[in-house]
């Protein structure tokens, strides 16, 4: 079947109809047709339609209700995502609605479809230092000195820290659309040599260290300034020559 789309956005079978059947019908029903409003249908329609159908509507209206965007709660998003493995965009939760009948197999079938996480989604890797306390100790910080997150600090952990706008990044930079969603930059702490390194990310965007573009991995020192999108972030180490969490490790 040859799928075609007319200028009004309708999909129709190009093999069956020489011209868009929806537009044709609209022209034929032009007088007082309730079917099309100002523009034909809010959604692209495939194939051809039956006679226009109207359903009885309540005859009075309330004042127009719009859901203000400000009612979307921002804060819980980050609180929520921190409990998911980084990189996981799927949420393998089972439905919280109990099945209507006593038949378990439908619920089981649905659970099976949701299960089987991919490798990346499996148990969150426990950082080397998390141990009993379950806390990944801070290695350093990025402090925002310019941009939408001015004044905020971001923790750098041991290992790789992905920087981006998406909520599942290790360092999430909010409110700046020029920051890539995923892996705009990678900041890593190498605990053996106690070194901090900035690495190019995996997005199309570039970022800068002290106003020089970062293409190859480069070592960071205190007071270095990273420019990511429209933000400038200053680096402060916690671990280094004089201090490391290794000093506290029990044998």
């Amino acid at each position, binding site marked *: 079947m040859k*799928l075609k789309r007319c200028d009004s956005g309708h999909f129709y079978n190009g093999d069956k109809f020489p011209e868009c059947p929806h537009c044709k019908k609209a022209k034929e029903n032009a007088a007082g047709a*309730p079917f099309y409003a100002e523009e034909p249908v809010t959604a692209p329609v495939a*194939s051809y339609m039956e006679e226009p159908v109207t359903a009885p509507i*309540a005859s009075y209206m*309330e004042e127009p209700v719009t859901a203000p965007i400000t009612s979307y709660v921002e804060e819980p998003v980050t609180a929520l995502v921190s409990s998911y493995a980084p990189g996981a965009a799927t949420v393998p939760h089972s439905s919280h609605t109990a099945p209507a009948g006593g038949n378990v197999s439908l619920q089981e079938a649905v659970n099976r479809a*949701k299960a089987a996480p991919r490798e990346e989604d499996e148990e969150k890797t426990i950082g080397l230092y998390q141990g009993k306390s379950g806390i990944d100790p801070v290695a350093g910080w990025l402090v925002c000195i310019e941009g939408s997150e001015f004044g905020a600090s971001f923790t750098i952990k041991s290992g790789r820290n992905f920087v981006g706008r998406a909520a599942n990044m290790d360092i999430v930079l909010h409110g700046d659309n020029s920051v890539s969603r995923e892996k705009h930059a990678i900041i890593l702490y190498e605990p053996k040599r106690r070194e901090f390194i900035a690495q190019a990310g995996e997005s199309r965007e570039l970022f800068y260290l002290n106003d020089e573009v970062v293409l190859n991995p480069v070592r960071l020192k205190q007071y270095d300034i990273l420019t990511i999108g429209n933000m400038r972030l200053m680096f402060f180490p916690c671990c280094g020559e004089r201090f490391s969490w290794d000093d506290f490790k029990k044998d």
Partner: protein
Amino acid sequence: MGESVTVEIFPGEKRGLDIGVSSVLGTRSNQEDTVFAYASGKRALAVVCDGMGGLEGGELASKTAAESLAEAWFEHEDIEDIPEFLKKQALEADEKVFSQKNESGESIEAGTTIAAVIVRENELYWLSVGDSKIYIIRGEEILSVCQEHNYRMVLDERLGRGEITPEDYAAQEYKAGALVSYLGMGNLSLMDVNRRPFFLEDHDIVLLCSDGLYRSLTEKKILSLVRQNRESMKEAAKALTRAALEEKRQGQDNTSVVVLRYCKKGTEECE
């Protein structure tokens, strides 16, 4: 006076999949839901998007998201990894809605939910972001397969982990309906996608709807209306929106529904 917009979709061939679509205004002044459904042979896509945001933002948002997914689906003849495709399309749609501008060039600051299903042979894949719902109806059972991504979900988790008391929960319940994930956030990460296919059985029915439907009708009522009209999904869809309107004469939200019935035999009559 509000006008109802009913979108009828006729599958290319009746074999395999019977689809019904209905979308009504309710008592609102404009339609912020967008629905799309297409089936050909044993391949189908159905989408319901419930937009929100000032002025025309909601309408634009839901339309952008639905069209984005639909166009991508039409472009890819044979998708190898459907869950991956859905996830990728959700992120793309999120980005598109987030960066959408109105005629004056200003950001529309709107968002939309999405509930979508793809059917390939007897495999069902779904995607949900927000609080639109996807139900599977098998025999006399109805089951919602996705979570509502709203603040209530967060409260429930916190209560479950003992982080808040029942009193705290009650105190915060007034914002329970606020969405915590939607297309247009710009940094979407929370979405429901089934990693493995759900295997459809003969006469299984899949129902997608915006919250206008399930906030007016109980699951029992929805199940009963669908079963009464199981010979024709078109009739089932109409019956559902009609019932939602009758249920709530005041303050009825935009209500949209797509019902899809799977028939293994794929014969003329899908009984």
